């Protein structure tokens, strides 16, 4: 006989028995039945808890485990864990059932949380103590005893810092001390600690080191991290892993520093010093002094490799470090005393002494390093790369241009803009030169734009920038139109973005001398903002403020943005206050907008510090300031994925009254989440279907910004319907965004590329399409192949840090909605996808790498197809017309003959006959043409097939080469017979190469930066022959 219990009430009633044995008996029964009857037992949980708390009750742990299980079933994990801890041995960590697993993960979460709070508090206390000690030490001379106590305390603190957890005793004494100060730190339950430790041990036994490392890092157990690194078989790998995850995931600044310091210690004890990683850590620790020492040592060391490593570190530093840091570093590097030229004596050419030669070499190397750190080398190399590998398909643009009404100034200037984007940094301005006549029609702000586009084309051309712009720059004496003068100043800023030491004075001068011409002021302000980005110079600031206070809408807007750029990321309170005040005074919306964007730039990267300002701005009555608030969130929390900020943005995106604010909120989401591009489509999928046009536009923009150059499937799926949206502005945004997402992809990787390119063309050539949509299509076409197809848009550097210039550039780019010339700011986010190998003299030697993928996968999209199409169309047109004419002439001749021969024939009949003949002939012609085309297509297909069959599985690429984001994983360095990279992990960017055959002469890649002579002869279709028009 077997029975299924329907209730546990009988057993529960036993708990009220006075006898302990009976209670224990009941508990044991309950423990076995709890999974079934937890609901019933939960009514009497109080009794069970009371039993657990009764110190005289013999089976307290049993009561605890029953209570824990009941709470687990009820979903009160906190209580459940508390009782499980009380259950001691009865809570068996090695069990694999769900209850145990859940509780263990819960205990980890709790532990991590508590450790975080405790370590944070400890850290604060430490800071406080240090400060107090400083103060005390100043007045220490009076009281010696106090000093002793102090030093004791200090020792203790240092000890407990080193192994805060291992030594419980010290930890407690420290706590006691803290208690004396009336600040309490919540202690971690030692039982919890025991469980955690036992789980760690189990991980070690099962060799799950990476998992354990992750938990240890999260739980801030530096002792365990160290233990793990020392324990594993391959510490180098573990070190690198630890370095990457601690950089990526540790939010707390000081803790990250602590972990990195520990890692640094470990690195330094390794037999082979890994300078590159060490310097990486030093950069994170902001330790300029040690970094400069290491660099100096590396240069002083004689081996070639060390010098190359120093250069490589220099390039990495330029990419990742802030301007300020680099500046400090350069100052700290020793300035070697120049060697005097040996005096010529008695006609004998004196030679340098060996000592001096050494010094000379050292000087040379040091100069090299400094120029690398200044960024000039990188910019120059990128410029050379972009110029050399320029694969712009001008036919595409010409095609679009032909379909654009030249009387329409908006679209014409868009074509010029698209051209600027296409040729950004390539210094190739063939198109502009070929179309000078057409450009001459452009006037007013379009002229401003087209002049500024020169700056885009010559971006990074630091040396020749001035020369190129010379004819347009303000000359002082009347000069040309203010629009081209203003545009050229803006262009100068674009060329010298972030490196404006040389041009800023000139721009300031131009600003002063322009006699308050607001157009020149506008250009000059933008130029100054770009060239002296994040410099924080108060003098320049005051100059710009002067322009702002003139209360001119056009100039004021630019001044507001420029002030933001100048003070970028400084959080300067005075500047914010002044700008905020002025935003409330002025009546010009443009100025308010410029200022509020400027404010947001000042708060770049400030995270929580910006909270107050955001609150203030987002509750303002003025919608433009609320708009600024959204951008402030975007800038302050860029790339952090901060949950609170995200919630706020989502709330505003659906609740604000003003469309601009809502749009800004959605775009800002993109800035927040750009480090997790895969998450963005999910987050935005609902917003992209919003009823509100602005929200849909914002969603499209945010997708474009975050998923640029990734061809993310989800993003494209969301964008596709938006490109066919009912609203023309939404279509515009979606087209631009699609262009961004598909950057650098060819048909083979993503079949949508050709489709979207055709769509761009169709939209532009469609008569009835709205001009706003056309504008989107033109810009999209410009972006998809931007920078000669050699750049991508990215807001993070290759190592995953925030790229400040890029983030700011995109933020200002998104203001193009109100002011088209700001479109150019997107160029700040262009990142050349290059692999550039350098030898010890920083020249590019002939060097090859292997890409283990079919060449066609990552090939540049072929430009020829389009060219053919155009030519063919023109040809056929010419053919039919001329032939028709010929036919007519023949007809005439025939007619005459006929008239002569058969004059009695009815003229009408003749006409009909002839018409029929004509038709036949034309049909024949057409059919032959069709056949020809078909044949051609067939041939093409066959060729393609052949190609596919023959296509090798790998490709040899020559230095310097384009390597797209997706291609990186296929790159190997094993093919070149001579050069080896210094940094193994580097598969892109600038790579220093070690010459294994230094005695042989080096072959260098030829570099020419001549912009004028490099005119590619494009085949233009012949104009049709003149003909006369006859009507039938």
């Amino acid at each position, binding site marked *: 006989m077997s*029975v299924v219990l329907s*209730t546990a009430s*009988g*057993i*529960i*009633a036993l708990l009220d028995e006075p006898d302990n044995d*009976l209670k224990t008996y009941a508990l044991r029964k309950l423990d076995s039945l709890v999974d079934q009857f937890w609901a019933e037992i939960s009514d009497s949980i109080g009794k069970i808890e009371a039993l657990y708390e009764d110190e005289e009750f013999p089976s307290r742990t049993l009561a605890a485990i029953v209570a824990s299980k009941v709470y687990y079933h009820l979903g009160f994990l906190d209580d459940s864990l508390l009782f499980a801890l009380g259950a001691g041995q009865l809570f068996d960590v090695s069990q694999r059932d769900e209850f145990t697993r859940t509780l263990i993960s819960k205990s980890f979460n709790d532990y991590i949380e508590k450790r975080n709070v405790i370590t944070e508090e400890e850290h604060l206390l430490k800071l406080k103590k240090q400060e107090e000690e400083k103060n005390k030490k100043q007045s220490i001379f009076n009281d010696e005893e106090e000093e002793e106590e102090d030093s004791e305390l200090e020792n203790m603190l240092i000890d407990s810092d080193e192994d805060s957890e291992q030594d419980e005793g010290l930890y407690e004494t420290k706590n006691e001390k803290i208690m004396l100060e009336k600040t309490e730190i919540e202690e971690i339950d030692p039982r919890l600690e025991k469980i955690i430790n036992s789980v760690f041990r189990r991980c070690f036994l099962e060799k799950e080191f990476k998992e354990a490392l992750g938990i240890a890092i999260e739980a801030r157990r530096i002792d365990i991290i160290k233990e793990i690194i020392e324990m594993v078989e391959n510490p180098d790998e573990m070190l690198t892993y630890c370095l990457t995850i601690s950089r990526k995931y540790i939010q707390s600044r000081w803790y990250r520093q602590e972990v990195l310091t520990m890692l640094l210690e470990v690195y330094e004890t390794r037999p082979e010093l890994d300078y590159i990683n060490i310097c990486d850590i030093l950069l994170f620790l902001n330790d300029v002094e040690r970094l400069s020492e290491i660099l100096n040592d590396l240069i002083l060391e004689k081996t070639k490799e060390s010098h190359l490593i120093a250069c490589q570190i220099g390039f990495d530093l330029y990419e990742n470090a802030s301007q300020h840091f680099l500046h400090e570093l350069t100052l700290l590097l020793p300035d070697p005393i120049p060697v005097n030229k040996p005096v010529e004596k008695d006609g004998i050419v004196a030679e340098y002494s060996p000592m001096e030669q050494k010094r000379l070499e050292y000087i040379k190397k040091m100069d090299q390093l400094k120029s690398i750190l200044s960024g000039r080398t990188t910019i120059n190399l990128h410029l050379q790369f972009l110029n050399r590998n320029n694969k712009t398909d001008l036919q595409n643009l010409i095609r679009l241009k032909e379909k654009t009404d030249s009387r329409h100034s908006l679209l014409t200037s868009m074509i010029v803009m698209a051209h600027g984007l296409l040729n950004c940094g390539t210094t190739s301005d063939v198109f502009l030169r070929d179309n000078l006549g057409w450009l001459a029609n452009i006037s007013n702000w379009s002229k401003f734009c087209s002049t500024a586009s020169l700056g885009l084309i010559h971006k990074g051309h630091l040396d020749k920038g001035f020369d190129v712009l010379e004819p347009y720059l303000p000359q002082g004496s009347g000069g040309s139109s203010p629009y081209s003068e203003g545009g050229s100043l803006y262009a100068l800023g674009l060329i010298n973005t972030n490196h404006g030491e040389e041009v800023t004075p000139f721009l300031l001068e131009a600003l002063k001398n322009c006699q308050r011409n607001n157009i020149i002021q506008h250009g000059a302000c933008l130029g100054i903002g770009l060239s002296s980005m994040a410099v924080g110079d108060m003098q320049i600031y005051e100059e710009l403020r002067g322009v702002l206070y003139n209360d001119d809408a056009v100039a004021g807007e630019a001044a507001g943005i420029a002030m933001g750029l100048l003070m970028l990321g400084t959080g300067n309170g005075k500047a914010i206050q002044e700008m905020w005040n002025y935003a409330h005074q002025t009546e010009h919306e443009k100025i308010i907008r410029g200022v509020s964007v400027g404010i947001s730039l000042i708060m770049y990267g400030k995270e929580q510090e910006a909270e107050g300002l955001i609150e203030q701005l987002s509750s303002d009555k003025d919608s433009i300031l609320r708009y600024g608030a959204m951008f402030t969130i975007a800038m302050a929390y860029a790339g952090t994925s901060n949950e609170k900020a995200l919630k706020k943005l989502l709330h505003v995106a659906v609740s604000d009254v003003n469309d601009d604010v809502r749009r800004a909120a959605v775009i800002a989401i993109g800035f927040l989440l750009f480090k997790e591009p895969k998450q963005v489509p999910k987050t935005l999928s609902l917003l992209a279907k919003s009823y509100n046009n602005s929200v849909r536009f914002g969603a499209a923009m945010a997708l474009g910004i975050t998923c640029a150059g990734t061809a993310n499937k989800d993003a494209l799926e969301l964008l596709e319907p938006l490109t066919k949206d009912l609203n023309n502005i939404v279509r515009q945004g979606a087209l631009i965004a699609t262009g961004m997402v598909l950057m650098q992809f060819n048909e083979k990787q993503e079949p949508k590329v050709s489709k979207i390119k055709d769509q761009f063309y169709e939209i532009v050539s469609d008569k009835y399409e709205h001009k706003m949509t056309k504008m989107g299509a033109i810009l999209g076409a410009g972006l998809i192949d931007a920078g000669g197809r050699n750049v991508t848009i990215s807001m993070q550097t290759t190592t995953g840090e925030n790229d400040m210039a890029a983030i700011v550039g995109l933020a200002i780019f998104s203001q193009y909605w109100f002011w088209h010339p700001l479109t150019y700011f997107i160029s700040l986010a262009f990142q050349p996808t290059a692999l550039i190998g350098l030898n010890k003299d920083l020249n590019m030697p002939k060097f090859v790498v292997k890409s283990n993928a079919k060449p066609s996968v990552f090939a540049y999209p072929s430009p020829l197809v389009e060219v053919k199409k155009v030519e063919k169309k023109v040809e056929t047109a010419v053919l039919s017309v001329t032939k028709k004419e010929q036919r007519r002439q023949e007809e005439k001749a025939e007619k005459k003959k006929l008239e002569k021969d058969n004059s009695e024939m009815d003229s009408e009949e003749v006409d009909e006959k002839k018409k029929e003949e004509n038709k036949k002939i034309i049909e024949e012609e057409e059919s032959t043409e069709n056949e020809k085309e078909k044949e051609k297509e067939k041939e093409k297909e066959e060729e393609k097939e052949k190609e596919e069959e023959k296509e090798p599985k790998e490709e040899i690429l020559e230095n310097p080469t384009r390597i797209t984001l997706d291609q990186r994983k296929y790159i190997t360095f094993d093919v070149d017979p001579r050069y080896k990279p210094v940094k193994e992990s580097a598969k892109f960017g600038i790579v220093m190469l070690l010459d294994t055959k230094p005695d042989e002469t080096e072959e260098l890649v030829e570099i020419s930066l001549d912009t004028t002579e490099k005119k590619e002869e494009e085949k233009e279709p012949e104009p049709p022959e003149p003909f006369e028009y006859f009507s039938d």
Partner: protein
Amino acid sequence: MEEQLFKLSKEFKFQVEQKQPDSVACKKLLTKLKIAMAEEGILFPGTDFPLDPKNIVFTRDVLELAVIMSVKLEDMDLFERQVSQVKPYYFDYGTEIKKSENELLILGMNLLYLLSLNRIGEFHTELELIEFESRSNPFIKFNLQVEELLLDGNYLGIQTICEKPPSDLYSVFVSRLKLSIQELILDCTNKSYKSLDLKTAKDLFMMESIEEVKEMAKTNNWRIVDNKLFFENLDEDEEKIPTNKVIREIIGYAKELEKII
């Protein structure tokens, strides 16, 4: 089964069947019995091994005796506990054994117990567990009648019906029921009348004498003037409407609405 268990159970039965059972001895014996049964594994046995019907009957009988004992001792806590202990033997373990004669008596007492405490919800839950045919059994029927009258507010009816309970054991619960009814009436009169003359009060409260009313007045701090009873402690802590909070929230909603539209 061990001899000792039988011996203990016999002794326990003997003790319980006394007219005035000895409280201390009985409880001691019961605990002893339970421990012995627990050790034997026959107190709420698990389902993992086959059960011996004999053991179940034995345990059930002991637990039934325990219920009767608790009624005789008028120990209500014990009663409730014992009833819930014996119930599995009626419903779960009881499916395969002969029904106990005392089953309906004990369940009926439990029902009345719940009624006397005004725990109507539980009363109905328990009632559902009892088979429908058993509702005509006097032990159960009595409770059904009482519940009906209680629902009608026919307190006089209850008083008459309670004069003839189906078992002597019921009298404990009947008197408790009366008390709780009295309380109900007191609660109501307190709010319905400002004053009452003592005689009416006596009838209304279903009390035996005016003296009793006077005593009641004393415990409740009611004044008696000229043979009249004055109720004074009217509840003053009426729930106030949280005006400010409501106003604030409504204005908040209005603002949000304005923003959306």
